[in-house]
Structures are given as C-alpha cells and as structure tokens.
C-alpha cells in the first residue's frame, strides 16, 4: 500500500510514531552533518530528512551499542543483562545502504549461534527507511545493488518527491503503525515520479567497484606492493572500522564493580586496524605490520565475506572514504588491483 505525506507533516508523523510507544531515532542537522538522535516529543520539528549520509552508522549502533554490559557476576552468580524485549524502537530516515548493512549484520549475529542481545534489539526495531534523493562523491551503492532505492528489509519506506513523500508499507508492523494515521492514497503519477527520482540519483553516482570476478583478483593480490604503499599513508586509527556499517567485531573485557564487589562483562566495538586485534598470548601477533591489517580490512569486505556469509561485505555507503584522515579510498584500491586505474 502506498500513501502520500506532505513534507510539512513529517513532525506530525514523528509525533505519531512516538505516541505509539516507540523510542524514536531520526536525523538531526548538526554544524556540518546530520546524525541520528533520540527524538523527544517536543523535538519533532528538529527531524530533518535532507541529508546524503549521517555521521554515524545508525543501525549498527542501535543493534550493537559501542559499549554494552553483557552480564554481571555477583556472589558467584551470573546474571545476563539482556535488552528489554518489550521495548520498541523506531528509526526514521535510514538510507538503503544502511538497511542492507543491517541485513548483512543479521547474517552475522542471528545465524547459529544467535546473539541474544542483537536479536532482542533487532526484533524490537521498526525501520522507516528513506530512498535517496541525492548522492555525493563518496557514494557507490550501485556497485553492490544496495541502493539508492530499497525493495525489502523495511517496515515503512519513504521517497522524497519534493513537496511530499511517498510512503510504502513493507511489513505488518509498518502497516499497523499507520493504520490510524490519516494519509491520502498515492496515485500512479506519484509512483512514476518515484521511479524518475531513483533513476536521477543513480545517474549521480560517480564511484564504482567492479565486482566481476573480484574474489579471484583479491586472492591474487595478497602480495601486491599496494598494501605496503597504503601502510605508509594509513594512520592506523581504526576510524574505518568504526564508521563501517558492516564491521561487526567486538572486544570483551571484565571490569570490577565497586559497590557490589562483583564483576561486569563489557562488550565494546573493536577493529582489525588495531595492533591488539590479532595479538595472542605471550605477545604473538598474526598481523604485526600495518600493511597486513589494511589488507585484512579491504579483503574482508571485498573477498572473505563471500565465503563467510555468501555475499560481499560492503554496501557502498562511502563512510570509510569520507572519514579516513589519510584519504584512503577503498574503491580506488580495488580499481588499482584490477589494473583499471594506475
């Protein structure tokens, strides 16, 4: 079912979502960029759907918080601190690349063995996606079929048609949410306009990764001198790991809890660019050189994911390119390995 929401009704729609008992996250404009923020009922006017890419991979941080307590150990008893399964969270304005990244994370966390923390959060999450109405110099989702529009993986889907949004339902949960929110039905003209918008955005995307036979090429390039060259530029900061919506690695630490005399087990985001990541007992390390760590990052996305989870691990969001202090560009790395660019 398709409906039309007037642009000025987005705050009203946001308030409707909150009134249904959801904790709402939506993009808010910052000094330079948009980022996803928790929206209280009196903040619905701040919701802004005019953005190319948000600072943070929003879905990843809602499903696997950067730092979370997994369990508490008190007086010899282990108590799991699972997220509240009855809570309801809605995220408004997620772009197709990020929705697809969430589907990839589901393969990682909801296959055997299931991660109960991720699963509880995923099940309580309602996704109101937003097809792209523009693209910038970092976008390359068309290379992976992960954007700029979405066919599945959402509860509700918005498309910006200028003075109004087309709203499509993708699940029963989505349909229920809008069942008592009055909107006019969309017409065939609206649908045609949506198709035009998406065609126009596709034409704006300038960056590409040629994925044909990519795995074979990546395996053949494991000893290519490019990795050493990149290690000279790379700062080793791990920002790419943090902003990547499909990077899923984590570290676990036990911390003493002073007041109870017990211990809490904490899970935090981790990244393969770090020295410590491949370090083992007695100081052994499988990836001593930064070149080996960059090679791992690029190969995991463009090669190893295929064997691990059945598809490439990149959605072409462009965050790792945009946020790299050294200006390393994964699309250019692949193009050079393919001999498509000097």
């Amino acid at each position, binding site marked *: 079912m398709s409906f039309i929401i007037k642009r000025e009704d987005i705050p009203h729609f946001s308030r409707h979502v909150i009134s249904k008992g959801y904790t709402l996250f939506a993009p808010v404009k910052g000094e330079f960029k948009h980022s996803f923020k928790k929206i209280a009922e009196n903040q619905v006017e701040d919701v802004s759907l005019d953005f190319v890419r948000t600072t943070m991979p929003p879905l990843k941080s809602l499903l696997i918080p950067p730092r979370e307590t997994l369990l508490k150990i008190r007086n010899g008893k282990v108590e799991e601190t699972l997220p509240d399964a009855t809570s309801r969270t809605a995220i408004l304005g997620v772009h197709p690349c990020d929705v697809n990244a969430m589907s990839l994370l589901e393969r990682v966390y909801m296959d055997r063995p299931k991660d109960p923390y991720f699963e509880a959060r995923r099940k309580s999450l309602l996704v109101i996606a937003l097809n792209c109405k523009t693209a910038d110099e970092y976008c390359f989702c068309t290379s992976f079929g992960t954007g700029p529009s979405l066919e599945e993986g959402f509860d509700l889907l918005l498309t910006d048609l200028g003075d109004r949004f087309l709203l499509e339902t993708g699940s029963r949960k989505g349909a229920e949410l809008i069942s008592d929110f009055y909107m006019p039905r969309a017409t065939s003209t609206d649908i045609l306009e949506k198709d035009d918008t998406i065609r126009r955005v596709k034409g704006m995307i300038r960056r590409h990764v040629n994925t044909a036979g990519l795995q074979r090429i990546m395996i053949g390039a494991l000893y290519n001198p490019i990795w050493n060259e990149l290690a000279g530029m790379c700062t080793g*900061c791990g920002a790419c790991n943090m902003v990547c919506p499909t990077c899923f690695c984590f570290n676990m630490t036990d911390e003493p809890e002073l007041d109870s005399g017990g211990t809490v087990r904490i899970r935090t985001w981790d990244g393969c660019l*770090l020295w410590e990541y491949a370090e083992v007992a007695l100081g052994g390390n499988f990836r001593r050189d*930064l070149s080996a760590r960059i090679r791992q990052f690029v190969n995991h996305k463009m090669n190893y994911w295929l064997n691990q989870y059945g598809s490439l691990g990149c959605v072409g969001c462009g965050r790792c390119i945009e946020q790299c*202090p050294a200006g390393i560009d994964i699309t250019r790395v692949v193009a050079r390995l393919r001999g498509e660019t000097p």
Partner: protein
Amino acid sequence: MVDKLKVGVFKLTSCSGCQMVLVHLEESLLEVLKHIDLKYFRMVSDDDLPNEPLDAALVEGAVTNEEEAAMLKKIRRLSRFLVATGACAATGGVNAMKNITPEGEVESIVYSSPEYVRSGKAFGLNEYVKVDAYLYGCPIDRNELVNTLMSLVLRVPPYIPGLTVCMECKMKGNECVFLTRREPCLGPVTVGGCGALCPSNNVACEGCRGVLKGTNVNGLVSAWEKAGVSPELIRIKLRKYTVYPVAGR
C-alpha cells in the same frame, strides 16, 4: 576475602594532578580503601619512604635527576607491581619538551630563579626500571585508576584496551575536527580510554595519553601537511606530549 593490597603512591617530577585523581575519587575512594592499605602517600601524610615490601606502587612523574632515579630504583625493589601513573611517568610528558632544547633554556623561560632548578632531561620510568602497567593521560582517567587498583586487588594484570581516541570519537558520532575544520588532531594515533574527551568538546586531541602501538604518526603528519597545517603548528603538536620521538622528528 583476599588480603588488603599494600600500596604506595609516589611522585617524581610532576604537577601532582594524577595523585589528585586518587584523592578525588570521592565516594569510590571509600570503597577502594576497603581493599587497599595506603602505606605511603605523601600528599595526605608526612611519612618517610617505606622500607617494607609493597604489593603495588603507583609512581607519578618523570625522572629528571639522579636522586629521582635512585628513589625510583628503591621503589622498584620494594614493589611487586609498578604502575607508571600518568603522561609524565609514561613518556616524560610535558616535561620532556625540554629534551630537545639546549640545557637551561626552558628553565630560564619558566622560572624567575632558574639557578635553583636541579633537573636534566626528563624521561619516563621505563628508561630506568621495569614498568608492569601504565595509566595514561594528563591527568589519568579515574575509571581506569579504579579498574587498575581493583584488578591488582584481585591479583590479575590490569588491562587497558588498545584502541584509539579516534575510534572512541567515532563511537560517539562526533563530527571530525580534522576533516571539518582542518585542525591537527592526534586522536588517530593516541591511546583511547578518555572517551575522546577533547574532540567531544570540539577541541583537537593533544595526545596526552601517548602514541598507541601500531599506529602511524608519520602517516598522520603527512595528512596534516596535505591539509595545509603549518610546520610550526605540527612542531608544537608533536612536542607537547612527547610524540616527536615516535615520529622521529
């Protein structure tokens, strides 16, 4: 219940700010004191250097003269576990700025009567003795201090995750001060754990927690140069918290 941990808190050349973090633990301090026995803490009591063995020594400050080196070696002999506490103890800290200027120059700028100053070059503790663990930062982080003390109480080695300030900044969803404002931020190469305190307040990281193993300072400096950061500003950034020896410049 395990025995109380016998702890000494010592100070070499430093501002005492890291010891103050221990004093300022406030409500946590009382909990911590249930598990540790403070045998020496000059800031709160006038006792002489201890002669009995200690389970752990927290040593603040850089080593800048022979007396301090001798005192540090004595502390090392007395202590089963030695924690370099804060930037000065870890790398020499702000004091080590003077290591690359002619002797006496910095002192004559800072003090009105520099003839009373008795110190040479400033080094971190590991130039003289084996260091078992580090608490980074200027000053140290209170949670890391509590975790370190409690780990020692439980007789397990303290662990400070080896991630960067830049990663913590990204976890918070901050806008990048380098990419948006071209400010030279040391976050990409600096040991995290502070929760990206400075960049979260719109100030570029000064690198007070030291350079994280495995990061590439020269790669970062090249990125700064490409972004048009002045050589003078780069020199100041690398000197403030002893990043220059890692960068080899």
